[in-house]
């Protein structure tokens, strides 16, 4: 009996969802609201120097990679299934668009993090 390939996308969806549930609200609050407005955090919380130091460190790179990539694959799966529910297109077209975009974004993430170097 033919196995579904859905698990390939479901596990990253699950991992990304768990991660987002645990750290998502805090990250959005800190990087998107507190740091830019200077309320609760100093204005140079995400300065170039600090961001570079974080991204150049192997652990920092790993964290950035895991957070960005897992969040992307989580979103991609949910958007794919919702578009399918909405009859937005044929199943295979939607799969290519959603997972293909996620794949491209993953490569961009890897490329950017590699460029930052150490």
């Amino acid at each position, binding site marked *: 009996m*033919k196995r*579904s390939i859905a*698990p*390939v996308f479901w*596990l990253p969806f*699950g991992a990304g969802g768990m991660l987002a549930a645990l750290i998502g609200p805090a990250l959005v609050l800190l990087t998107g609201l507190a740091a830019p407005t200077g309320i609760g955090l100093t204005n140079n919380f995400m300065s170039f120097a600090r961001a570079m130091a974080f991204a150049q460190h192997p652990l920092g790179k790993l964290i950035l990679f895991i957070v960005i990539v897992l969040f992307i694959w989580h979103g991609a799966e949910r958007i794919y299934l919702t578009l399918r529910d909405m009859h937005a297109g044929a199943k295979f077209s939607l799969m290519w668009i959603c997972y293909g975009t996620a794949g491209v974004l993953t490569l961009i993430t890897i490329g950017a993090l590699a460029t930052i170097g150490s």
Partner: protein
Amino acid sequence: MPPDPAAGAATREIVIEVLRYRSETDLKPLLQAFRVPFTDDMSVLQGLQYIKDHLDGSLSFRWSCRMAICGSCGMMIGAQPKLACMTFLRDYYPGPLTVEPLAHFPIERDLVVTVGGFVKKIESIYPYLIPKTQRSLDEGEYLQTPLQLARYETFSDCINCMLCYAACPQFGENPDFIGPGAMALLQRYNGDSRDGAQAMRMDLVHTDNGAWSCTAVGNCSEVCPKQVDPANAVNQNKTKSALDFFLRFLGRPLYWEHTASDGDKP
């Protein structure tokens, strides 16, 4: 039986609109309205019986136990999948109350839907115990602790009423989806400590029409009249199927059944 004013409650009248369809005369289904006198203790099923007995004898619908255990009287009542015998007319007064056949199934006649597909799905999941090791009669019964029973007990409560199929939009989109009811029965056996056929049943789970048609809407468990929680049956098997997809090459299938914590042998 006509409502009995002597039963205590005053008799009121409700309008019930029933979706009629007779293949020999109708091209498509149409609503037909009936004025039904009722007392507060009357179920929708009794309302339909009143229609059949006094207003239109051609009305067709399935029913049997009238106490929510046979699973025969599932239908769309007020656009919600419910058992007619445990839904009450007083809650829909003055109406019009729309009664239609169970959603997502072909209409055979009036409120009777075609159930052959569902029966085939039930039959396909090996709905019987296949012991890990056969015991001879002198060895006695296959024993089970109450805790081992508790692991799968709710899944054994299913009365095959198919309300969950009517509630599931993914089954509506894909009639080949094995569906919540069949998956509950599958998990009833896979979760039974006496059973050893998990691998055979998981072969059905791993397919696109198995657990992977489900998107965790969860409506199936909401409408279940017996609290079977089919959503849990389907979605725990997604986890098992996903882990198995990647870990099967390690040799032993990872099926999460019968952990050592409560022991396999009582």
